[in-house]
């Protein structure tokens, strides 16, 4: 039994990093703009398809497709913020919460992305992006791991560290944090709030695209693969929705729990495990496993 549990746990760590990468994208947007991005999964999806386009039609080398897809989705996310969300915000009277409208706008974006991808007949069939790393699987004792899996874990941790450093140490990162904590004060000290928001959306989208290209070999590509966003939300919550390292840890916890539940209880229960975990965590510890004390937002 132990080898089985170890294998389940190891695979869970890998899948968890998958969720974590998407969760990072969601959390960045939330931390900076208070918006829950319901299109997060679809941006991952479209990032994957851009990557596929670059690899198979334009025949770019693999590393370049990351850049191509990230650039394309950066533009997409930034444009969405600039064109749509800005307009929504602009119509709010001061003091009014327009959050719900922005969330519905992201729902609209998810339909637009899904709809535009579905029109292309190529996407009717389930497709697979060839993995970045191929070759013999790696054996860690009784545990079997694919090279792509290890790459996913390493890249996820690296990205998380890079983002954390960005927010903590660079001027731009600090400006972004200031914008999220108090947009008016940030504007007063000369931070270009609108441009900051656009940048955040761009970064988050590029991040989602990178996640998409890493995950597509593992998850298989359909226009509906965005549904995985639910698990990314779960990962983010477990980690404490406003914490970046929390995303990784939350994702890993989720992935491992799902697999252990599947192994030890039943495969049928796999799909409900994340939701039970969310509810338990929020009831017992609303700030998640790694979040700070719950801060009441400005009145």
């Amino acid at each position, binding site marked *: 039994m132990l080898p089985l549990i170890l294998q*389940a746990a190891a695979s869970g760590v890998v899948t968890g990093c998958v969720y974590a990468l998407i969760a990072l994208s969601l959390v960045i947007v939330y931390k900076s703009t208070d918006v829950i991005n319901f299109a997060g999964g679809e941006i991952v999806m479209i990032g994957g398809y851009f990557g596929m386009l670059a690899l198979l039609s334009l025949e770019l080398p693999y590393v370049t497709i990351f850049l191509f897809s990230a650039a394309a989705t950066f533009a997409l996310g930034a444009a969405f913020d600039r064109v749509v969300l800005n307009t929504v915000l602009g119509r709010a009277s001061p003091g009014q919460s327009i959050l719900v409208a922005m969330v519905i706008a992201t729902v609209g974006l998810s339909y637009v992305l899904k709809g535009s991808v579905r029109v292309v007949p190529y996407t*009717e*069939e389930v497709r*697979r992006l060839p993995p970045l790393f191929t070759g013999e699987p790696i054996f860690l004792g009784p545990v079997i791991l694919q090279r792509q899996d290890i790459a996913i874990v390493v890249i996820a941790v690296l990205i998380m560290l890079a983002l954390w450093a960005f927010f903590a140490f660079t001027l731009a990162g600090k400006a972004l944090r200031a914008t999220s904590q108090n947009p008016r004060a940030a504007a007063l000290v000369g931070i270009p709030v609108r441009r900051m928001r656009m940048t955040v959306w761009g970064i988050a989208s590029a991040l989602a695209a990178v996640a998409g290209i890493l995950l597509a070999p593992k998850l298989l590509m359909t226009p509906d693969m965005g549904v995985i966003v639910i698990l990314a939300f779960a990962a983010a919550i477990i980690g404490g929705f406003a914490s970046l390292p929390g995303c990784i840890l939350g994702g890993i916890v989720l992935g491992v729990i799902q697999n252990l539940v*599947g192994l030890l209880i039943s495969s049928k229960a796999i799909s409900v495990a994340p939701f039970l975990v969310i509810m338990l965590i929020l009831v017992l510890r609303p700030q998640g496993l790694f979040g700070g004390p719950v801060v009441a937002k400005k009145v």
Partner: protein
Amino acid sequence: MTRGAFIRGTLLGCAALIGGLAAPATAADPGITDTEIVIGLFAPMSGQLAAFGFDPLQAAKMWYEEVNKKGGIHGRKLKVIVEDDKCNPTEVVAVVKKFVTVDKTFIVHGGSCSAAAVAAQEFVTREKVPHIMLNAAGDAAVIPPTRYVFGAFAGTQRTVGGTIMEFAIKELKGKRIAYIAHDDDFGNANWATAKAVAAKMGVEVVAVERISPRITDVTAPMLKVRAANPDVIINTAYPAPAVLITQKYAEYGMTKTPIVVAVQGIPLPAVFAKNVGNDAALANLYYGSPLNDLTDGPKQQKWIQLYKQYYPDRNPGAFMTYGLPSAMAITAALEKAGKGVTRETFIDALETLNFDTGVLAGPIAFAKDRRDGHRASIFIKFDGKTHKLAPGAYFWNGKDGM
């Protein structure tokens, strides 16, 4: 005028009125005139399951056009009104109600999704309108059979389960079977018959894994399957999970064990192989199909060529020919019922049908107590490059698992 004239006039007027009212009592059903029969045709033409309904619907339309070209049926042309149901029960009900109460079609022909078919069942039965499904499996709507609903033109999931288990036992000599199915209505149906067939043939099912259609990590189920040490693995999952399962099956070193994939998991074998990305995984892979040949095999070519003539801009997908048998059954029954066909005689005619479609592995057959048209499967060994048809077709007897 005189009082007499007035009374006579009124009486004549009343008689005319009564005569006019009485006449419709023997009039034909709606949707049928001397020159045309109106059919309400629907399938998912957009949304997540469009691939499952778009081409079959066009194939059905194509068949009707061919019949019209040959002069129609008893001098009547077939007129088709098309609607998109998105495989959504609310939309299906709306579409069917529109066909029956607004467009007043003679019959409704459509449905590529089982749950949606069940949603409309009560309405068509109450209104006494024949509903012939398109390519839906429609298990719950045809078993138990009800008078007005005909379906399973590509086989029910019960057929899939029964035949795949029989193939695993008879051809692959399985004695310890591992069975993977989804936890949805498809999984319920195919597992029910598979279980019964295994029990009937005295074979043990050593592992049963019911997984969500949206599963992303099949580690846990596959570990359990491997631990159970089966000698045949049956995989009835949908395309994405089916690929994941096959990949893990190779990753965990199980490729010496034959694996049989049900039709719903492998619409286009070449794409499936590419997705698995590892031909070693396909060394012992088989898949099932309700057709009489490979999807692009010689027996299917004539339909594919015809489709290309009608719709040159569209590549017929994996399911195109699945739309033909139901249309064929409809025109055959209309022929049989004769010029004075009504909804009731149409149904009676359908019940007598038993014919080879030239598309499917077995005949389409109905009876007074049978509403699932097709009960056969063929199986093909596929190693990533070549297909090898296993001999014979497998049939579900309509009783196992009931």
